[in-house]
């Protein structure tokens, strides 16, 4: 009787443990499957041409130069707009308003913005920028991406500033430094690696964002460096080309997908290296 119960409990445990092992293998299996398919399909189309030529009309040879350029421009602009805003807001939350009620509310709202659907951001920018201006523009696309950058940077800036020991601030204040100087010359310097990580993660996040660009920057078949006109971006071109019936467009879409994934993975790993080196020192 007792041995039967014992055997049943052990059996149940063995079943649960094997299930968890299987679940883990399934979970990791997807990563392997997706990256495998991406490499398999994407490497085929990878050539110098991809980086030197414009997007082709169906049936012709071409590359992805204009969308790569567009993605770089809009990502750069978005980071240039979003990072200062994020760092300033994060500074308030960790330094001036650490115990303020505002901070709790802002943190709550920020966490919601952090995981809000990105297509909503696209609609918002369409309503406030594109519709009044009357046309799609690269600038609107960059603004939409900046709205996504801000919460990521706020979150990491606040977290990292909170990790800076108060003794450092007090020592600087005892020397007679005004608060703003303490923050800029002591706290920022101590939290630099963490803040850089936040910016890297934000870049990784927006470099693959498609939904906010679809109706802000739209797309552009041709080379354009005009911020006031529609601009191509890698995700938007992948979207258009992958859903097209033309085999050579689909091939370019795979190559573009590979480029984005490699960029995102490099950025995420770089972000880990930056924080990792900080922890060791």
């Amino acid at each position, binding site marked *: 009787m007792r041995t039967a119960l014992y055997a049943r409990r052990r059996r149940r445990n063995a079943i649960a443990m094997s299930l968890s092992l299987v679940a883990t293998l399934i*979970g990791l299996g997807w990563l392997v499957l997706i990256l495998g398919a991406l490499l398999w399909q994407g490497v085929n189309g990878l050539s110098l041409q991809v980086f030197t030529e414009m997007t082709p009309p169906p049936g012709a040879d071409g590359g992805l130069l204009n969308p790569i350029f567009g993605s770089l421009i809009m990502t750069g602009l978005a980071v240039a707009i979003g990072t200062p805003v994020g760092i300033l807001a994060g500074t308030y939350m960790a330094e001036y308003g650490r115990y303020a009620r505002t901070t709790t509310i802002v943190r*709550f709202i920020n966490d919601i913005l952090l995981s809000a659907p990105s297509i909503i951001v696209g609609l918002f920018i369409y309503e406030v920028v594109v519709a009044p201006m009357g046309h799609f523009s690269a600038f609107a696309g960059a603004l939409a991406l900046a709205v996504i950058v801000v919460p990521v940077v706020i979150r990491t800036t606040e977290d990292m500033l909170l990790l800076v020991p108060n003794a450092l601030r007090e020592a600087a204040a005892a020397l007679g430094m005004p608060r703003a100087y303490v923050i800029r010359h002591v706290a920022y310097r101590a939290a630099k690696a963490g803040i850089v990580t936040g910016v890297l993660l934000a870049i990784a996040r927006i470099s693959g964002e498609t939904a906010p660009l679809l109706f802000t920057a739209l797309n552009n078949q041709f080379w354009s460096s005009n911020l006031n006109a529609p601009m191509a971006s890698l995700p938007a071109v992948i979207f258009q080309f992958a859903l097209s019936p033309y085999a050579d467009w689909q091939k370019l879409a795979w190559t573009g997908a590979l480029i984005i994934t490699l960029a995102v993975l490099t950025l995420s790993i770089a972000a880990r290296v930056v924080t990792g080196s900080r922890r060791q020192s």
Partner: protein
Amino acid sequence: MPSRAQVLVRMRLADKTFQYLTHATALGVLALLGCIIVALIIGSLPALRTFGFEFLVSQRWNPVTERFGALAPIYGTVVTSLIAMAIAVPIGLLVAMFLTELCPLWLRRPIGIAVELLAGIPSIIYGIWGLFVFAPFLQVHVQPLLIDTFGEVPVLSSLFAGPPYGIGTLTAGLILAIMVLPFITSISRDVFEAVPAVLKESAYGLGCTTWEVFRSVVLPYARVGVIGGVMLGLGRALGETMAVTFVIGNAHKIAPSILAPGTTISATIANEFTEAVGDLYTSSLIALGLILFAITLVVLALARYLLLRVERRLGA
């Protein structure tokens, strides 16, 4: 040479300016959320005025006659998210259990990193993979099997009816499951790891098996955090756009079969917004966005509230 008093005045000014600047930016975040809501409401007013409450309960979507109803996209959003959660929650919890209870220490970090990399892959990558690799695989190997197996079973036969298209509601749900799995796993792992070792050890000391410790000690202790993580994953699944747009088929109808093409709120907006002619069409799409934002706000706020409670308890 400025006097000491002048320098002090200047420093004081710079100090105050910096403080007010940071304060204003922080309040700007609150204003941002307010602006988003107001902009969506203003944008959707024409549609809401024209259709009223009917917008929520009608499944007509006819750009030619300009009659719009949101029921089909809302239904698609809810069903795909439910499929995703039904698959991702048990698997995610099992993976988290593996990582905290079973996995050898040297393997924990690599697997944890792999899970987080999976979370970082942009959704359009899942979309293109789903369209070209996953959907054809389902069409050839899985869907015919489902149709054959459940063809005779009363209720399930209508759920798995129709030809195997490959793309459709089920495919979208499965892709979403893959996408939210890392979120659920990493949050669950974090809350499982926060369970005090003493609690687990005393259960082991009473002779419990690993599974019994997990089910009767770890899971009840981490319950609130796990629910928070699940809600966070649900928020993602509800609002996910690109991955779904590729594989859902964009059909504005409510089909009883989950193998049939459907649509979701985000997929409808992504597919039709740039082609929408006429103010009413555009406005209806923005109204869809408003509905989506309202749903995700509630879900995400609840998730954050639950996770906040866990943090407070850990902090205390």
